[in-house]
């Protein structure tokens, strides 16, 4: 079986504690916690016969034979050496405790010994001072402390050597897909090594465009010719999809560069001569903008914004009495989204006036249009009975208006449906005679 991991905490007590300890004692404890941790020892009680230099009875704390403390007495004793409330931190993951007593104990005051607990405390290896053997820092570039250990890492353009401590130049295939970030040439702003060939690819989600903002201290060696400066030996090439690559060099920062692309490739090249201090940039991403959608007659487009970007939604509602129409079909609702291409995924619909359809025919009556067109919203029709043979129930003709819910609604408070009742006993011709 493998050795079990040492405990992360524990407790140490003098023999018989809390009863007085016996004389002629020499007892030793070897405390240990896992590698990468220190031991923090805290006394909860210490009452050992006090003497100058803890000559008679003592508790000695050692780390690899290095004395961390020799304690005796109690909190109130004038002589002796009491640790008080201060914990003792071992430099490493082990600690040795030695408890010694002489052959006599004072009769007047029975000393109880000590009680202490210990726990593992993570060592921040990264903040440790550089070792004096000139072997260099723990990590040559980036140190990451972990529980019980640490990790070394390297800046972009470098990779960790097999010693897991130092970094070597290697800057191909860096892909940056975060919405914003910071890039710089190897070693920037210090003079980098020669013959650098680094590639940086910024690739964010479609629908976002990348803008590059070069810092002012831009320095890539250029060569002056009769035609002006050219990027002959050193350059930073910016490549955008479907566009000619652009080589940058010189001492003047390109400043802000809007790429209008979600993908940017940067190739940094230096040869084995010359001096380029390099460059750095911050990149940001912006959502692709869609064109202003315009308005819809007899409708409302919401929300109304100054500009519309990728993933923005638009909704269209028609005014009361109008319906949404798209491609000749009525639709119940409409929304469109600004796509990653910068186009709306659907064109805006139209609002057409609603139509209540033909009013229901009236038995023994008829319908006439009073106002409006083709049974459209707010058209008014009037039902009337075929007089003189029929008359309306209630004695009045009823008007119906085409309502917003496409129903013909009576404008009469009481009568919501017209009925024609036969007229009885009133012939159109009367028997008449003049002879007397």
């Amino acid at each position: 079986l493998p050795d079990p991991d040492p405990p992360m905490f524990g407790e140490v007590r003098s023999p018989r504690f809390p009863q007085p300890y016996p004389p002629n004692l020499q007892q030793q404890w070897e405390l240990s916690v896992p590698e990468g941790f220190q031991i923090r020892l805290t006394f909860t009680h210490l009452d050992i016969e006090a003497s100058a230099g803890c000559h008679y009875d003592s508790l000695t704390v050692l780390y690899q034979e290095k004395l961390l403390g020799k304690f005796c007495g109690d909190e109130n004793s004038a002589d002796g050496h009491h640790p008080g409330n201060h914990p003792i931190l071992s430099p490493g993951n082990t600690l040795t405790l030695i408890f010694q007593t002489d052959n006599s104990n004072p009769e007047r005051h029975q000393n109880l010994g000590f009680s202490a607990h210990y726990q593992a405390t993570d060592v921040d290896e990264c903040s440790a001072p550089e070792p004096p053997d000139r072997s260099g820092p723990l990590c040559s570039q980036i140190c990451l402390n972990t529980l019980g250990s640490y990790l070394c890492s390297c800046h972009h353009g470098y990779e960790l050597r097999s010693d897991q401590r130092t970094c070597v130049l290697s800057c191909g295939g860096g892909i940056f897909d975060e919405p914003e970030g910071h890039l710089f040439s190897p070693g920037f702003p210090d003079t980098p090594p020669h013959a650098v060939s680094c590639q940086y690819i910024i690739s964010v989600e479609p629908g976002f465009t990348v803008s590059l903002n070069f810092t002012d201290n831009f320095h890539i060696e250029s060569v002056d010719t009769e035609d002006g400066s050219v990027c002959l030996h050193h350059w930073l090439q910016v490549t955008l999809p479907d566009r000619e690559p652009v080589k940058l060099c010189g001492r003047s920062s390109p400043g802000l560069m809007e790429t209008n692309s979600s993908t940017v490739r940067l190739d940094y090249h230096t040869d084995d001569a010359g001096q380029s201090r390099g460059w750095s940039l911050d990149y940001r991403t912006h959502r692709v903008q869609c064109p202003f959608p315009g308005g819809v007659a007899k409708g409302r487009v919401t929300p109304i914004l100054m500009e519309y970007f990728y993933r923005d939604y638009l909704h269209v509602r028609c005014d009361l009495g109008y319906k949404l129409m798209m491609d000749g079909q009525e639709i119940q609702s409409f929304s469109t989204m600004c796509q990653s291409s910068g186009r709306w995924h659907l064109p805006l619909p139209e609002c057409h006036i609603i139509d209540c359809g033909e009013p229901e025919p009236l038995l023994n009556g008829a319908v006439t249009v009073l106002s409006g067109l083709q049974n459209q919203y707010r058209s008014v029709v009037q039902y009337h009975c075929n007089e003189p043979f029929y008359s309306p129930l209630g004695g009045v003709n009823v008007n119906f208006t085409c309502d917003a819910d496409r129903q013909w609604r009576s404008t009469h408070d009481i009568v919501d449906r017209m009925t024609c009742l036969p007229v009885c006993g009133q012939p159109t011709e009367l028997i008449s005679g003049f002879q007397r």
Partner: protein
Amino acid sequence: IIGGSDAPEKTIPWQVMLSVDGGRGGGMVIADRWIMTAAHVLVKNGEKVAPETVRIYMGQTDVQTLTDTFVFPSSLHIHPGYKNPNLLTYNNDIALMKLHQPITFNSSVMPLCLPAEGATYHTGIMGLVSGFGITIDQGRRMLRNKLKYVQIPLVDQETCSNSVSMFKRIRTHVPDLTENMFCAGVPEGSKDSCQGDSGSAFTLREQGRFYASGIVSWGIDCGKQGTYGVYTRVTNYLPWISKIMQEN
């Protein structure tokens, strides 16, 4: 109709002619699916005739043209109180016929109003009775096939009752006069309804509207001096009419 005149077109648009098993009768339109007539028109040998034996003609005044179109009733509703085994008991002589399809009214076909509840019958008030029944021309009974009408007054119930009683003394088999009947006519005779008019309306006019006051029911001879035509008193049957129409 005795002593009457030919009815001009559209003047009596509720008039219906019935042809029942070869016999002729009358009726009146009272709603777009209902015809009212006399019960005895629809009862033969004590039995209700089959609806398919009843032809209903309407809209014209000339039988020649009237016969072009007719309809059959979908159901017949004889008043349950009409029991006339010996043809001497015309009490409750009222019946309704329902049509298969509703009629669309126009100037030629129009319903007759029913009387208001509690409508009174004032002696002497002139009513109008019409029908396609027989007439008497120069003493001969004739069937002219034209809708005729005559205006006759309502007769006091006692006067009528006395007339019936008098005839009972000199004739056998004279029907009884009941409170469900009233009489109309003139004492000198010569103006009356007659055979073939049965079931037709005796109408009164009030506030410009004609309403069915009576149904031609029976009489002793036609147009004879001292006799009157006897009509079913429609006012007494308003609840029954309403009930039958609602239930059907």
